């Protein structure tokens, strides 16, 4: 199986505290990696490093067998990061948000109305996002997954604030992505419903200043 992403000996120190050191991981096409751990353990930091937002203190990240700095553009095209913050403009409506988001992602042929229907926001299109619920805002943010061409999805707590139907919808989309040879790196406090050899887990935990990786 081809290796999509590989992290080598990552060490991160934030505000004087070592979050993890010499952490390595590997993720192949069609695989999903679930990063677990208590609050503040450094899960988000790990995801942000892999997304290319943060520099690790030591170590490096490779995509398709190339280091991160080698081809930043390939990196940006082949990865999709959705963090805690939904990147939804509160002043704009759901439809406007989706419209601008597709343009920012360079997906011109995507119909924002269609997308709105897919994520179940039809009928709410002309309400400013700040008046929508947290779950509905997250749906706007996650709508990107339905047109993204990126091979690697990096999702920080994607299920937060979603209702059961939303979670089910997201699971279906993940399944499609993996079947298309995509990879998925995510954090979640919620147990993932599917299992099997495709699912890997990694746990970051502080245990008397020692780090545990499983």
């Amino acid at each position, binding site marked *: 199986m081809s290796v999509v992403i590989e992290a080598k000996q990552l060490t991160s120190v934030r505000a004087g505290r070592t979050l993890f050191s010499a952490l390595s991981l590997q993720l192949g096409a069609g695989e999903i990696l679930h990063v677990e751990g208590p609050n503040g353990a450094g899960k988000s930091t790990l995801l942000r490093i892999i997304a*290319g937002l943060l520099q690790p203190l030591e170590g490096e990240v490779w995509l398709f067998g190339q280091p991160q700095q080698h081809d930043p553009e390939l990196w940006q095209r082949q990865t999709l990061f959705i963090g805690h913050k939904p990147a*939804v403009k509160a002043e*704009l409506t759901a439809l406007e948000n989706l419209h601008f988001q597709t343009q920012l992602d360079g997906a011109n042929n995507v119909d924002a109305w269609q997308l709105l229907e897919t994520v179940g926001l039809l009928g709410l299109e002309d309400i400013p996002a700040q008046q929508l619920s947290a779950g509905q805002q997250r749906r706007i943010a996650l709508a990107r997954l339905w047109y993204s061409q990126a091979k690697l999805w990096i999702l920080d707590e994607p299920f937060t604030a979603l209702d059961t139907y939303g979670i089910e919808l997201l699971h279906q989309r993940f399944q499609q992505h993996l079947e298309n040879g995509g990879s998925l790196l995510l954090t979640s406090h919620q147990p993932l419903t599917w299992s099997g050899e495709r699912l890997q887990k990694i746990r970051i935990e502080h245990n008397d200043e020692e780090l545990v990786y499983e």
Partner: protein
Amino acid sequence: MNKASSWQLLSAVMRRDLAVALRRRSDVINPLLFVVIVVTLFPLAVGPGPDVLGRIATGVIWVAALLSSLLGSERLFRDDFLDGNLEQLVLSPAPLPFLALGKIVVHWLLSGLPLVILAPVCALLLKLPFEAWGTLMLTLLVGTPMLSAMTAVGAALTVSLGRGGALLSLLLLPLFIPLLIFAAAAVESTLVGTSAYGQVLLLAGLMLLTLTLAPLAVAAAIRVSVN
């Protein structure tokens, strides 16, 4: 990344910023009202005689412009930082300095350009002799893009601090000094009847330099701030 799609991203960023700003008009209007109010205070403080007012008019208008650009600086990156759009800009395939320039231009359209249009009102209130109005507007036209660009550097550096207001003025005001000096001198030389050509040209040169380099600094500062 081919050029066409970089332009497309730039245009999307700019149109979205404009759309957001139009939904939050008070953020755009308040810094302009601030300038008018500051200008109104001066005659009340130093007396309405044209000899005093006319002499300090340019300085007052320009200092008010500098301060108002600090007031409006939060609009540049604060919301983008809080709602996560700033990190998405960093991850965007278009060059970040290029997108930063787009945000600077939008900021100028909504803060600098209105100030140029507002200048005659301020000049009238401060009894600036009519022959200098043109030069005043010209210095604002050439100087305010520089103001927007430098403000963007400061705003990008302090966006993650949350309490950056006072710090921002400490960082930026010393850097505004050349702008203030040359702009005031240009108007002054029109008032004494000599040509302001040299000073305006100098300002234009500084503006080009700033608009070339500031986006690079803004991009670097954004990368640091999304940490």
